[in-house]
């Protein structure tokens, strides 16, 4: 089964970083990445597609326009079944506390430990 993951980050290089790190999984089709550079773009994507396809949203917090936390609130409200992982450079506890309260499934600090993240994703998609 294909796991479709929506990655949201305003840094264009983030997409490249994720593609390279998950190149094997992408190549064999275990994971399909959709990328959005803003909260608005992410919401558009979610609305335009059949939403059960996207099984996970990975979002940066510090973004211009809609912040990751606002996006988190909206996704949790409209698609409560889709888990959301928040990624941030603000690794402090109060931020973590805040995002977890708002329903984030995971709180990942930058730099991202891709080995750990890969484990988490594969567990979630059940391909492990």
């Amino acid at each position, binding site marked *: 089964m294909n796991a479709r993951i929506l990655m949201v980050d305003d*840094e264009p*290089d983030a997409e490249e*970083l994720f593609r*390279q*790190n998950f190149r094997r999984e992408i190549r064999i089709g275990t994971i399909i990445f959709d990328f959005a550079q803003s909260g608005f773009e992410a919401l558009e994507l979610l609305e335009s597609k059949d939403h059960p396809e996207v099984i996970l949203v990975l979002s940066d917090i*510090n973004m211009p326009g809609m912040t990751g936390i606002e996006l988190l609130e909206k996704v949790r409200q409209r698609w409560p079944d889709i888990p959301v992982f928040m990624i941030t*450079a*603000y690794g*402090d*506890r*109060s*931020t973590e506390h805040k995002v977890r309260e708002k329903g984030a499934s995971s709180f990942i600090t*930058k*730099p*991202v430990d*891709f080995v750990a993240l890969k484990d988490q994703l594969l567990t979630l998609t059940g391909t492990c």
Partner: protein
Amino acid sequence: MGDSINLVARGLDQLTEGFGIFDDDLRLVSCNRPFIELRNYPSKFCKPGTSLETMIRFNCERGDFGPGNIGKQVAERMSEIRKSGHREIERKMTDGQILKIRYHHLENGGLTVTFEDTTEIRRAQTALAASEERYSLVSDAAEEAIYEWNIESDCFFSSPQLQELLGREFNENGVRDWRWDEWVHPEDVEHYKKMLQAHRSGETPRWECEYRVRDRHGEYRWISDHGTSIRNDKGEAVRMVAAVRDITDRVEREAALAASEERHTLVARATSDGLYDWDIISDFLHVSDRLNSLFDFDAGDITSRDWAQRVHVDDFDRYVEALRTHFKGDSDHLECEYRIVDKNGDYRWVRDHGVGVRANDGRVVRLVGAVRDVTDSKVVDEELQRAQARLRDSLETISDGFLLVGADDKVRLWNRRYMEIFSDASGGDISDLVFEGQSFFDMIRTGYMRGMFKPHPEGVDGWIADRRKARKDVSADFEMQLSDGKWLLINERQMSDGGRVSVYTDISEFKRRENETEAARARFEDAIEALSSGFVLFDAEDRIVISNSKYRKYFPKLNDMVSPGTPFKDIIQAAIDRGMFPQSKVDPKEWLAKLLKKRAATSGTREQKMEDGLWLQISDHRTKEGGIVSIYTDVTELKSREVELSEQSAILEATLENMDQAISMVDEDLNVVMFNQKFLEYMNFPKADFKRGFHMSQAFRFNAERGEYGEGDIDAQIRERLELSAQFLAHRFERTKADGVTLEIVGNPVESGGFVTTYTDISEAKRREADLMATKVAAERALQELQKAQDRLVQAEKMASLGQLTAGIAHEIKNPLNFINNFALLSAEMLAELADVLSEPIASLSKDEREDAEDLFETVKGNLNKINQHGRRADSIVKNMLLHSRDGPSEMQHSSLNAIAEEALNLAYHGARAENPAFNIEMVKIFSANVGEIDCFPQDLMRVFLNLVSNGMYSAYKRKQSSSDPNKLPTPTISMETREQGENVVVEVRDNGSGIPEEIRDKIFTPFFTTKPAGEGTGLGLSLSYDIVVKQHGGTMTVDSEPGLSTTFIVTLPRIAVDATVGGESTK
């Protein structure tokens, strides 16, 4: 016969009148020389046969009759001449010449025209009129009599001149027992009454009437009565003010003049025939009919004797002389004016023009001439001369200077007094300056230059300008001082012809008196102003004469009232109305009555309290004239002192007895002149023995005898104290009595000698002072704490803002850094994968190429690791920077210090071991159980201890490791000790590393300062720790180091947070 006609023609030529005869066609038959000359006709023009119309046309064309249509002018004149029988007209020519023209139609139808030049007569008449006017103006200035008639009350007041004029005396009170119109001439009385009625009713606004009035002697005088009236609302005159001027002379002259005019006309008519022809050889005198009728000679033969007999005896010699001169040939014509008696026996002035007919030997054989009656112009001339003489005489008689200046500003007339005044001022003769025809302004300019006048601030031009300005007014009155000090009152009046009359009155004496009076008054005023008291003088009618400013100052509300002439009663009334006399409020009327009664009765001194609390002593003195002089002296202070003194004595007594202090007063002889009961109480002196006035020695003896001064010679003790007291030095000391009461005794010398001593029970104050001191110490301590807390707060604020900045920078760097690290790691992985993928193709390469490829792989891999390694180093720095500004737990906790310390020790050890498995160190723990729990942020304290321990371990281990001879060194040891110290707890971390050199010891808490090699330390550990301990927890952190031996960090923390919020805030 022709000779005869010729002679007649020559005689006619001698006439001053022009004479022309025209025929019935109005063509010229004959004319004499004056006819041509007076009309200024060209001589060739006046030939027989020239028509009158041609002559008139010539006149018109020449402009004799002014501008206009010439044809029309000629036609008009011709028709006038033709229709009228006899006509006589006077015409003023354009050149100013006045001609009397007579047309006389002859019975046989011809016309005679005569011209007579009357210019001179008219000029003389005009001059006379002007002179008359000047005369009356002078009279106006000095002679007019004034009266005032109050019509309603029928009171009549007049100036002395009127009484003088009429020679009558009028009652001063205005009551009259006469009627004015009784005295008016019967012929004038109707006119007078009519005029008066017209004026009183308002028909004529100005009263003006000339009539005759009878004086005391029964003589009538002509007067000009003129003036104005004050009217009621109906317009009727209720009061008349008028001036009366004696015009008798003028009226008489006018009458005379009128009479002479009449005569002149008659004579003038006669003179047209005033021809004579004297045959000297036969002495036959032929006179014309006109002459004959005038003089009524015997018909037929008259001789020169008949003529000569009639010549006025006074003029006879002159007449004969004139004849002789002409007969001798010394004159071309006979010309003489003389008086001759007419048939009525009146002398007439005639002008005799004649010309002699000479025989071959030159002798005059015949005299032909014309006699013209010039009485009229003579009379006028004489009249003029008389009027002028009268004017001069009257001018000379007046004591004022007089100057008449014409409209052209030329000097015309002046009197001797005028000359005197200005000669005196110039100090010399001024006849060269004052002459007829002199320009007035040139005259006064020269006068100014000669120093006759007081200098003008703007010099001569300014002075002249002022005078010119004054002359623009119709009349001007002004005073002027001359350089000799003389004061003049100058009264200038404009005349109708534009000339100006100035009358100069010497008012020096008046001025001097005025100045003297003024000076005397000023001296008096100065004197009263100099008084320190208020001064006011009232006259016998009790009206203010003078007051000084001091007086007015006492009554500022009455400033509008206090002026000369105000009655005392009015002033007092105003003062009462304005509430200035508080005592008057009950019954103002009675109060005023009383006051006035008192004032009338006495002079003397009284005191008066004013509303503003001022006390005035008023002393009144009667003056010789019956007035009152009042002197006002401010006695407020005196008054208030009197009152104060009695009040204060009572107050003092009461105060002394009621005060908590004991008090005594000693005079210069050491007698205790005053004390209160408290004094006896405090001193324990028996009341019976110590009466007011006791001597100090008694008190000393009493004290000495009861042993208060200790052992010793009682007399010596007393003497010693008396001597000390007599120095009268200010003193202050405390004395605790046997009953435990502490007294503070303060003595101060008083100016008048002696001193005042107060005794205060300060037992209570002493105790309070001690309490106060304790409170003060506590308060100061609290203040210090507060200041420290405040400093921390300020520091925390600074750190917080610095922290925000740092955090911002750190985050910005952290993101790209993450990418660097991530991509470097990823690349290394991928390179390894690439190496796997390419292992076979590489293996198949030649040895050189294979080695080259493998070498490249290794190098790139190494580079990527280096990128990753340095990236992590930067990341570590950024992380530490973020720690400075992290969001930690915001609340203080109550935690066990020992537990935190122990955990930190363990973590550091394991951390070091994780990094370097070979690491080992001896650890010493000396934890005091008394330390217990403290208020702190445990995570942050953990970080501090971890940092200190890690540093210590690093230093101790490094020293051993880097030593060239490690065995000589002791085992690396880290020791940690906790202990209680008063309200604080102390944590010491000691290592036996290389120590911290003295010179860098004060830098170690500075951010980014590190002694570790690059990449091993961030330089932020100690700086961060210092902030946590000092700023966050309010503790202290010091370092003690012996280089080459050991380093000890001592952290002191308060057990209980000084201010929990301070720590909390600082963690933002």
